[in-house]
């Protein structure tokens, strides 16, 4: 994945992790809980899925590790590219939802 341009569409897991990290650094368990709350229990991820996704997101430049001393509680934060990607994906989803509403309304 390029480190300069958002790569869309995102998977639901990546989208929700980015959303959970918007405006706040969080550790793994906190991210899992926030994702679950934001998605209304639709996206439930365990530690393996979460850290696999975080590794790929760090590699893609979307997320970075914060400063932390405790290896059990590593905090993660959004990068500038992560914020741009989140906004772009939100726009894309909004357009898709608008189109779907229009078509469903006219049916």
């Amino acid at each position, binding site marked *: 994945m390029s480190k300069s341009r958002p790569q869309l569409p995102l998977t639901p897991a990546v989208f929700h992790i980015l959303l959970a990290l918007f405006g706040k650094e969080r*550790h*793994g*368990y906190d991210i*899992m809980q926030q994702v679950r709350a934001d998605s209304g229990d639709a996206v*439930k*991820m*365990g*530690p*393996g*899925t*979460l*850290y*696999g996704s975080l*590794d790929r997101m760090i590699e893609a430049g979307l997320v970075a590790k914060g400063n932390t001393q*405790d*290896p*059990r*509680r*590593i905090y993660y934060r959004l990068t500038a590219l992560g914020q741009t990607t989140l906004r772009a994906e939100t726009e894309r989803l909004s357009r898709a939802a608008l189109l779907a509403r229009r078509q469903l309304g006219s049916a």
Partner: protein
Amino acid sequence: MTRPARQKESRSLRLYARLLELYPPSFLQRHRAEMLQNFADLEDAAASKAKLWLLIGKDLAMSLMSHFFGSRLGHYVIAVLVTWILIFAIGYFFYGPTPGRPALHAFAGFLPGMLAMYFATRLYGTPQNSISHFFRSRFDIYVVGVFVAWILLFVIGYYIYGPTRGHPALQVFGGFLPGMLAMYIATHVYGMP
């Protein structure tokens, strides 16, 4: 919600710590402590053990498959799987559901054999190549155990069914050992993910 280090670990946490060994070592080096802490937090918050293990079981299956099939060893297994499907399809085309086609049945045992050897290598480490070390590692004991079980099952099967051609239970198990051998060679050639 970080637990004090001296607090006694639960059996579930110890089991989860053991299951984590199935992940690639480089991944564990980065995340092992975090994953154990997350599990402890999930366990504290879980309404029941069943719900906890349902989530963890699904998570382990999905994330391990993702790690495995992204590796060179995973690509090798995909190639074996495709070959298996092709051979089975060709065999079915020629023979139909005819019972007693040993080549087809035996190949069915190949995949579980590969899986068993993969888990053994992941859990018990890279096997020793030197004959002087044989029987000294848990890996060797596991392989010998499977081999003895195979002979026992075959003898019991032969005793009950005699030389019945095409008894699936015997033939499927026949493919188990070649499957283990194939994975043993593959882990040496491609390395573990």
